[in-house]
C-alpha cells in the first residue's frame, strides 16, 4: 500500500489521541481517587453506588434515631424502676399491717401513709421525658393517670317490665305530693289486664278454667270522675287491684293486701305501674283519656324478647290506648331486676338497704352469657370483683315474690373510693429501627397498673391499694392479707413491663450493631466499586505514560525523515 504523509500523520495523531485519552482518564482517577466518575464508567456500578450511599445514609440516620429511642427507653426504665421500688415499699408496709400484733391505731397510721405513697405512685406514672408523657400511649401530651375522687354512680339498667308514665309530675311541695288534677282527663272507665301465668298440667298444656269461671283474662276496671289528682288515681288503682284479689291480707305488701299490680309515684316524679312477677300486662279500654294523657311506655322490653299473646285475650284496646302497648306483655322468665354494669374493677356497695323484700346478686364475667349462682345481698354488702373487666355485669335481683317494690330506699353505687383513671390510649408506638423492622417504644400505664383482658394475671393496682388502705383503716386483718397476694400480682405486672423494656433496649442495641456492620460493609463495597486502586492506578499511569512516550518517540522518528534531509 502506498503510504503518504497524510496517512502517517493521521495514524500518529489518532494513536497519540487515544493514548492521551487513556492518560487523561487515569489522571482524573488518580487525582480524585475515584474510578467511577460518571454513570458510563460503570453503569451497573453507578446504580449500586447510589444504593450504597442510600444505605449508609439511612443507617446513619437510624443510628441517630436509635440513640434518641434509647434515651426514651432509659427514661421509661428509670421511671418503672422507681415505681417498682415504691410498690415494694408498699408491700412491706402491707405486711407490717397484716401482722396481727400491731394495734389498730398503727394500722390507721399505715393506711394514711400508704395513701400518700399511692399518690406519689401516680406522680411517678405521670413522669415526662421532655414535654412528653412517658406512659400515655401515643397521646403524649395528655397526663396518663388522673385521680378521680368522685363516686361513680352505678350504671343501672332496668331489666324487666315496668310501665312508666312519660309525663313527669313536678311536685310543688316536697311534703305535699301531687294533688293536682290530671290534665286532659274525662269521666269514664279504664281497663287494665294483669294476668298470672297459666297453670300447666303435666304435659305442659294450660289447665282449663275452673267451673263457673269465665275463660280468658278479666280486666280490672276503674271508674274515674275526671277531676281526680294523680295521687287519687294511684289510690283508686291500688284499691281496685286489692279489691280484685278479694282483700287478701299480705304483710309484706306495701299496701298490706295481696295485689297483682302496684301503682306508685316514683322519686323521679313519674308514675310507675309494677305488675307482679310472671304476670302479663296490657292496657284495655280507656274512655278517660288517662293513658293518653300520661303517655305510658314499657320499660325493659327489648325487641328480641318474644311476646306471647295473652291467652284468650280479646282486642279490647280502645282508640285511646297508647302505642305500642296493644300487645300484651308477658312476664315469662324474668322478674324485674336491675342490672348494674361494671367498669373495669368495681365495688358495689348498697348504702341503703331496700325497704321491701330482699335482694340477691349474680355476677357475669362473660358479658351476661352465664351468671354466677345468686347470693344474697345484705345490708352494707359489697360485691367486689378485683378481676373485673368492662364486660362484667353485676345483676341485682329483688325477688320478694309478688313485691317488686323497691324503688325508694335503695342506692347503688360502684364505689372505688378514689378512682384512678387512665386518659391515654393503648396504642403502642412502633418505630422503624432497620429495614422493615419496627420495635415498640412506649409502655402504657395500663400495662403496668391496670387489669387487662389479654393478661389474666393482671390486676388493677390502684384498686388493690384502695382496698388495702380501706381494710387497714377499717382494721380488717383478713382483708389486708388478701390484698397482699394481689399486691404480688401487681408487682409481677410491673416487673413484666420492666423486662419488656429491657428486651427492647437489647433489641435496639443489637440493631445498632447491625447498622454499624452494615455501614462498614457498604462503605467497603462502595470503595470497591468507585474508588481507584491507587497502587494499580499508579502502575497503570506509569504504563500509560511509557506507552505515550514510546509512541511520541516512534512518531518523531517516523515523521522526521524524508528525502528532503538527504538531498543536498
Amino acid at each position, binding site marked *: 500500500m502506498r503510504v503518504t504523509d497524510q496517512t502517517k500523520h*493521521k495514524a500518529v495523531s489518532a494513536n497519540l489521541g487515544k493514548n492521551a485519552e487513556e492518560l487523561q482518564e487515569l489522571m482524573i482517577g488518580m487525582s480524585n481517587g475515584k474510578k467511577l466518575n460518571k454513570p458510563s*464508567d460503570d453503569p451497573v456500578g453507578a446504580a449500586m453506588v*447510589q444504593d450504597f450511599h442510600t444505605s449508609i445514609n439511612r443507617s446513619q440516620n437510624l443510628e441517630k434515631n436509635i440513640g434518641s429511642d434509647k434515651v426514651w427507653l432509659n427514661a421509661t426504665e428509670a421511671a418503672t424502676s422507681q415505681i417498682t421500688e415504691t410498690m415494694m415499699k408498699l408491700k412491706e408496709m402491707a405486711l407490717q399491717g397484716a401482722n396481727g400484733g400491731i394495734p389498730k391505731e398503727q394500722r390507721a397510721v399505715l393506711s394514711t401513709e400508704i395513701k400518700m405513697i399511692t399518690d406519689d405512685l401516680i406522680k411517678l406514672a405521670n413522669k415526662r421525658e421532655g414535654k412528653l408523657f412517658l406512659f400515655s400511649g401515643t397521646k403524649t401530651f395528655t397526663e396518663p393517670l388522673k385521680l378521680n375522687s368522685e363516686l361513680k354512680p352505678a350504671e343501672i339498667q332496668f331489666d324487666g317490665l315496668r310501665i312508666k308514665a312519660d309525663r313527669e309530675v313536678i311536685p310543688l311541695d316536697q311534703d305535699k305530693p301531687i294533688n293536682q288534677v290530671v290534665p286532659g282527663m274525662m269521666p269514664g272507665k279504664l281497663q287494665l289486664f294483669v294476668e298470672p301465668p297459666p297453670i300447666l298440667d303435666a304435659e305442659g298444656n294450660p289447665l282449663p278454667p275452673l267451673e263457673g269461671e269465665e275463660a280468658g283474662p278479666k280486666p280490672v276496671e276503674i271508674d274515674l270522675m275526671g277531676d281526680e289528682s294523680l295521687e287519687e288515681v294511684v289510690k283508686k288503682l291500688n284499691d281496685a287491684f286489692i279489691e280484685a284479689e278479694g282483700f287478701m291480707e299480705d304483710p309484706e305488701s306495701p299496701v298490706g293486701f295481696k295485689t297483682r299490680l302496684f301503682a306508685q309515684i316514683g322519686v323521679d316524679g313519674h308514675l310507675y305501674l309494677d305488675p307482679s312477677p310472671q304476670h302479663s300486662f296490657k292496657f284495655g279500654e280507656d274512655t278517660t283519656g288517662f293513658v293518653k294523657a300520661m303517655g305510658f311506655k314499657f320499660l325493659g322490653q327489648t325487641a328480641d324478647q318474644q311476646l306471647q299473646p295473652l291467652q284468650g285475650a280479646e282486642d279490647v284496646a280502645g282508640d285511646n290506648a297508647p302505642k305500642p302497648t296493644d300487645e300484651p306483655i308477658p312476664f315469662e322468665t324474668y322478674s324485674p331486676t336491675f342490672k348494674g354494669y361494671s367498669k373495669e374493677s368495681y365495688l358495689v356497695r348498697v348504702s341503703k338497704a331496700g325497704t321491701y323484700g330482699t335482694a340477691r346478686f349474680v355476677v357475669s364475667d362473660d358479658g351476661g352469657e352465664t351468671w354466677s349462682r345468686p347470693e344474697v345481698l345484705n345490708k352494707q354488702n359489697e360485691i367486689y370483683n378485683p378481676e373485673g373487666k368492662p364486660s362484667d355485669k353485676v345483676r341485682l335481683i329483688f325477688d320478694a315474690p309478688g313485691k317488686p317494690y323497691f324503688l325508694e330506699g335503695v342506692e347503688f353505687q360502684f364505689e372505688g373510693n378514689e378512682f384512678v383513671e387512665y386518659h391515654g390510649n393503648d396504642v403502642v408506638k412502633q418505630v422503624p429501627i432497620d429495614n422493615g423492622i419496627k420495635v415498640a417504644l412506649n409502655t402504657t400505664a395500663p400495662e403496668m397498673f391496670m387489669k387487662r383482658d389479654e393478661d389474666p394475671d393482671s390486676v388493677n393496682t390502684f384498686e388493690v391499694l384502695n382496698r388495702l388502705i380501706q381494710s387497714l383503716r377499717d382494721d380488717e386483718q383478713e382483708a389486708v392479707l388478701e390484698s397482699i397476694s394481689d399486691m404480688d400480682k401487681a408487682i409481677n405486672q410491673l416487673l413484666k413491663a420492666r423486662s419488656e423494656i429491657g428486651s427492647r433496649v437489647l433489641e435496639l442495641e443489637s440493631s445498632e450493631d447491625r447498622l454499624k456492620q452494615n455501614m462498614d460493609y457498604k462503605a467497603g463495597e462502595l470503595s470497591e466499586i468507585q474508588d481507584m486502586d491507587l497502587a494499580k492506578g499508579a502502575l497503570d499511569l506509569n504504563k500509560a505514560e511509557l506507552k505515550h512516550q514510546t509512541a511520541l518517540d516512534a512518531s518523531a522518528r517516523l515523521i522526521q525523515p524524508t*528525502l528532503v534531509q538527504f*538531498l543536498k
Partner: protein
Amino acid sequence: MSILGAFEVGKKSLSAAQQGQQTTGHNIANVDTEGFSRQEVLQTSAQPNNGGRGNGVDIQGIRRHTDGFTKEKVIGEQTKVGSWETREKVLNEAEIIFTDLEGNRLRGSLDEFWDAWNNLGHEPESVTMRKNLLSKASALADRFNIFDGRLKELQGNLNGRIKAKILEVNQAARQIAELNKQVEQLEKQGRPANDARDAREKMLQDLSTLVEVRYFENERGTMEVQIPNGQAIVHGRTAYEMTALTNAELKGDFRLGLKTPTGQEADVTDIVTGGAIKEYITQRDTNVRQYQQNIDLLAKELAFQVNSIHAGGTGINALQTTETSAYSLNPEALDQPLPFLQNGAFEIKLYDKDQNQDLTINVQVEAGKDSVRSLVEKINRAAGSYEVDAEGNEKLKENPLFLANIGADGAVHLKADQGHQFHYNGDSSNALAVLGFNGFFQALGGAGDIRVNQELLDDEMKIATGHNMTPGDNSVATAMTDLRMKGVLGSSGDLSFDEFYNVQITDIGLKVQDSQKGLSNHSDMLQQYEALRDSVSSVNLDEEMANMVKYQRAYESSARYMSTVDQMTQTLINM
C-alpha cells in the same frame, strides 16, 4: 529534417520538465490540504513526423489521483460517524445531568426526604423534626425542578443545534452548486478542474456528516446530491434549501424540511436515516424525552403516593375550618369517573369550638364510578347537609354543619360551619389525595412544578404524622418510611422510587457506553477508509522529492540538449 526541429524538441522537453516541476511544487504545497488529490503531469511522446523521427514529448494534461470507490466508502462512513458523534455528545450531556455519584443531588435529596420522615416517625411531636422535614422536602422539590429544568434546557439546546446544523447544510449545498458551475465551465473549455473537484468532494464529505446523502456525477461533470429518496439537495447549479420545520403540535421542536423544486417544504425527517441532524432529532425525541418523562413520572408518583398516605392523616392541633382542593377541573370533567380511586372510604371528623367531636363524616368510595360531583354529594349526604323542604324536595340546608361544594373555579371547597373545625381521619380510597386535599406535595405537571403544599410550609404542625390528632401517633410517618421501600413504579409496578431512579442511571450509563463504542468503531472504520483513499490521493513527500530530482535532472538534460543543439547550430553557422 531541420535543426530547428531539434530546438523544438528541446523546447518541449524543457517545458515538460518545468511543468512536471511545477506540479510537484503544487503537490508539495498542498501536502496538508484537506481533500487535496495529488496531481501528475501526463507526458506522451509526440507524434513522430513523416520520417518516423521522434518529435519529443507532449504534455497531455494534468491528472488527479482519485478512487471513486474509496471516496464513496469514506462519505458513507462519514455519515455514520456524524450520527454516532452526535449521539455520544447528546448522551454525554444528559449523563452529566444524571451524574450524582456522591449522592448529593436528586437521589441524595430523596434519601434525606425519607430520612426526615423516619425522624418524624421517631419523634412525631418534635417541631424541629417537622421543620427539618419541610426543608428536606422543599430541597427535594427544588432538585426535581432543577433536574427538569436541565433536561428542558438540553432539549432547547438540541433544537438550537438542529437549526445551526441545517444552516451548515445549506451553506455546503450552495458551495457544491457553485463548484458544480466552476467544474462545468472549466471542463467545457477543456481545462482541468482538478482543484474545484477536490473542493467539491471536501464539501460533500462535510455535508455527509450532517445529512445522509446519495450522490453521482453526471456527464457534464456536475455532482447531483440527493437525500435517500432521490429528492435533490443539489441539482446542477441549483441548491435546494433545507429548513427547520416546526408547528404548534411540535411545541418548538424542529424537524428536518427540504424545499422541493416547486418551492414547497417537505418533511424529510423520516426519509433521512443518518447524519448529525437526524441524530439530534432522534435523541431529542427518544432518550432525552424519555428521561424527562421518567423524571416527571417519578415526581408525580412520589407526590401521589406521599399524598395518599398524608391525606388521611392529621397533624397536631391542626384543625381547619375551610379547605380548597389543590386541583381544579373543567366543568365537563366533573362528572367523569376520577382516576386512581380505590374501593374504600375516607373520613372527616368535625369538632365544635370546645374540641368535642361533633360529627363523623364517613364516605364510601367506589373506584371507577365516583366523580368529583358524586363525591361532593356523598360528603354532603354523609354530613347530613340535605333536608327535605315543604314540597318534599331534597335540598341543601342553608347553614349545614359541614358543606362541600364545587366552586366556579372548578375546585372543591370544604367548609365547616361557624365555630366548627374539622380534620381528615383516614383514607383508604385515595379520594382525598386525588381531589387534592390535605396533600403534602403539589405536582400538577410533574418534576417541573412539584412543590410542598404551602399550608404545611406556613404551619408545620399541619404535617400529618398520625391520626385523630393524637400527638404521639406516628402511623403516617412510619407508613411513609415503608413507602420508601415499596414497589410503586415500573411496568409491573414493583420498582421502588430508588430503584426506578437507578434504572435511569444505569440506562444512561449503558447508552453512553454504547455510543462511545459505536463512535470508536466507526471512527476506526473511517480512519481506515481515509487511509485507503489517502494511499491513492494523498501526497507523499518522498515521492515528490524524487519527482523533483527527476524533473530537475530532466530539465538539466533538456538544457544541456538545448545548449548542445545550440553549439551544433553555432558550428553550422561558423562553417
